[in-house]
């Protein structure tokens, strides 16, 4: 078992072709070649922090403002899910809670864990950490459900005075938070998970 780096080669992450170390762009597909993304972890943590900053107001401010003949109500992400549960639609409430609370929080934790264990090492096998990464990458987009619901409802429910729905400020910050965490996960170079500590010398370009 050898890696491309141990063989003195650099692999293209887009098309899997290998080139001699020092080659700068892949002649097959034109991507930039890097044996390891040197600034990968810095980029991961930068997006992570911005995502986290956006996630806080997303939970404090209303996501949805509903105006009816008799009342006007504002609901936050969690508040909205609880309302749905009160209507007896427990399954839908669970979907909303999982998509907008469990997944984002889990993602923040998982990305931080992966970034920290690259430098500290971990008791978990690289294979398990690779799986964690794949789950994070697959699941991140599902957090957008609530944003889409807000966009749909505010376009649909415009029944003059009877009822109307507007997006609250949280809709924007939540969408940004999801986008930033997706970028954070994308910046992570999974090859770092597989490098044994001895291999992590100076990072070649």
């Amino acid at each position, binding site marked *: 078992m050898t890696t491309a780096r141990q063989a003195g080669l650099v692999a293209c992450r887009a098309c899997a072709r290998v080139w001699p170390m020092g080659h700068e762009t892949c002649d097959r597909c034109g991507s930039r070649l890097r044996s390891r993304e040197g600034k990968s972890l810095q980029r991961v943590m930068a997006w992570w922090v911005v995502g986290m900053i956006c996630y806080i107001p997303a939970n404090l401010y209303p996501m949805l403002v509903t105006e009816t003949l008799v009342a006007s109500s504002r609901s936050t992400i969690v508040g909205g899910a609880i309302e749905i549960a009160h209507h007896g639609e427990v399954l839908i409430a669970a979907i909303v809670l999982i998509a907008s609370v469990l997944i984002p929080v889990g993602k923040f934790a998982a990305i931080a864990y992966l970034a920290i264990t690259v430098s500290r090492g971990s008791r978990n096998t690289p294979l398990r950490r*690779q799986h964690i990464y794949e789950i994070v990458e697959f699941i991140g987009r599902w957090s957008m459900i609530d*944003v889409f619901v807000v966009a*749909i409802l505010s376009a649909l429910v415009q*029944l003059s005075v009877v009822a109307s729905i507007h997006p609250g400020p949280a809709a924007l910050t939540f969408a940004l938070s999801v986008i930033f965490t997706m970028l954070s996960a994308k910046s992570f170079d999974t090859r770092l998970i*597989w490098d044994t500590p001895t291999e992590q010398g100076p990072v070649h370009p």
Partner: protein
Amino acid sequence: MTQTIGPDDLAQLIACPNCDELYQARLPDEGERAVCHRCHTVLIQTRETAGRRVLALSIAVMILVIAAAFFPFLEISAAGIGNRVSLLDVATSFRSGTLVLVSVASVMLIVLVPLIRTVLLIYVIGPIELHRPPARYAKRAFHLAQELKPWAMTEVFSIGCAVALVKVSDLARLHFGPAFWMFAALSIFVLINDRYLCTWSIWNAIEDTQ
């Protein structure tokens, strides 16, 4: 293999993009997949008919996305007043200042990105399947198509429709419009499409015919 820079045998190697493990590239048997031993990433999957299927599905997806953007996906009625919206209405329904971004971003992720991605795939795979030289800028087009993959969110939108339906059930009666069913079909097509798409084979085809 045609002219390549460096020794010819480099072209025979393949490195796992996720863990850097090096292998001799060997085409797996028909219908089988070559999987990285270390991290279980699928490296190569060959199916005689894969290219044609991806092409056919991409064309279907393209037509469905365009149609689904114009038809209403949800209809509402309450106290004698009704409303029906298509995604085009969502895009143009900006009333509230900065939150324009929310509706514009939603429509981009639901319609525009999937549409661009399928057009790019057709553009790249079409000539290869017809045994013609690859289209101009095929490399860039395929790169972009791969980059856009996580940002195409049709299936997330389908679930969003179902949630929206329940969320306002006490305000008004909601019904699914034709575009909702198109999106449901689309989501399945996109899923199958991505399963058939073998990145390595396409890059290889682009390289071979250059």
